[in-house]
C-alpha cells in the first residue's frame, strides 16, 4: 500500500520532466535563450500574473490566451512595451525584448499573427521611455474595444 502511494508522485515527476523536455523543442522566435527568458518570467512576472498566466483581478490582467491579441491591434504592439510591468522591469532592453517575445509565444501562441515580427532591444528602448502608469487600464480597454478587435 505504501509503495502504491509513492507511485503517483513518481509518475507525476516523470510526466512533468517529459513535458519540460518536450517544451524545450518548441521554437521561440526572437528568443536567444529560452531558459533565461523563463527564469526572468518567474522573477519579474510570475508573482502577480501567476505560474499559468491566469493573472490576478484588478492588478495583473490574464496573459494566457489573451496577451498576443494586442500584437495585431492598432496601438496594441506599443501598449505591450509600455505597460508598467514591462517598461519598469529591472532588465536591459535585450533581455526585456526576449522576455516579451517568450511570454507572447508561451502563453498565447494562438493569437499571434502569422507574420509576427519579434520585438528587439531598440524597439523596447523607445517604448519604455514612455511608460504607462494609472492610464494603463484605460488604454487597454480602448484598444480591446476597437471595432475590429479579435475576440
Amino acid at each position, binding site marked *: 500500500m505504501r509503495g502504491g502511494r509513492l507511485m503517483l508522485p513518481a509518475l507525476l515527476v516523470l510526466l512533468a520532466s517529459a513535458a519540460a523536455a518536450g517544451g524545450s523543442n518548441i521554437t521561440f522566435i526572437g528568443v536567444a535563450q529560452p531558459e533565461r527568458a523563463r*527564469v526572468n518570467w518567474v522573477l519579474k512576472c510570475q508573482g502577480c500574473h501567476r505560474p499559468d498566466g491566469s493573472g490576478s483581478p484588478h492588478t*495583473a490582467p490574464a496573459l494566457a490566451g489573451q496577451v498576443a491579441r494586442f500584437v495585431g491591434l492598432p496601438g496594441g504592439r506599443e501598449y505591450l512595451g509600455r505597460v508598467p510591468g514591462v517598461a519598469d522591469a529591472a532588465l536591459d532592453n535585450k533581455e526585456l525584448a526576449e522576455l516579451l517575445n517568450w511570454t507572447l509565444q508561451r502563453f498565447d501562441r494562438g493569437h499571434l499573427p502569422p507574420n509576427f515580427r519579434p520585438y528587439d532591444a531598440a524597439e523596447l528602448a523607445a517604448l519604455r521611455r514612455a511608460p504607462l502608469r494609472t492610464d494603463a487600464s484605460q488604454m487597454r480597454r480602448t484598444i480591446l474595444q476597437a471595432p475590429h478587435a479579435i475576440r
Partner: protein
Amino acid sequence: MIDLDRLFEKSTRNIARRTSRRSLLSLTGKLIAGGLALPLLPVERANAGPPTKGKNASDTGAPIDPGDPQSCEYWRYCAIDGYLCSCCGGTTSSCPPGTEMSPITWIGTCINPGDGRAYIISYNDCCGRSSCGRCRCNRNEGERPMVRPQANNDINWCLGTQSAAYHCSTAIILGTATGSKP
C-alpha cells in the same frame, strides 16, 4: 539426575498447588496490555532525540539546506518582509492551520550557502488571521523604493485570497536562477 527430577517435580507441584488457571490468564493479560502500553510512555519519546520545534524534517541538518528555518538568518529569507510561518505553526512551505496561502507572491533569489547557487524563492503570504507576531524578519535584499511597485515589498501580498488579513510568510523554492542576474 534423580535430584534434578525431584527438584522439578517438587517445584511444579508447588506452583500447581498455589496458583490457579485464572491467575495464569490474568498474568498473560497483564503482560499483553503492558507490552502494548510501553511505547506510549514518555520514556520512549525522550529517547527519540531532542524536540524539533516544528521544523520540516528536510530543513534540519541537511548540508544542502543549512540553517534554522526559525531564524531570520536562514538563507531562504534574504528577501522576506514579515513573520516567519515556521514560528507560527506552519513551515517554510506551508501555512499554519486556519490560514490560506496567497497565490500572488513576492519573488526573489537567494544564494544557498550549502551549494553556492542562486535559488528562486517565492514568499507566499498566509492570510485569513491577524498578524502572527512571532519571528519578525525584514531583510528585503534587492528591494526597490515604492516608485517601482513591481520591485517593492511594502504592500500587502494577501491578494487573491478570501481575506486580506496578513498572518505570516513562507519561503518556497521554485527552482534555480540559472544564467540570470538576480
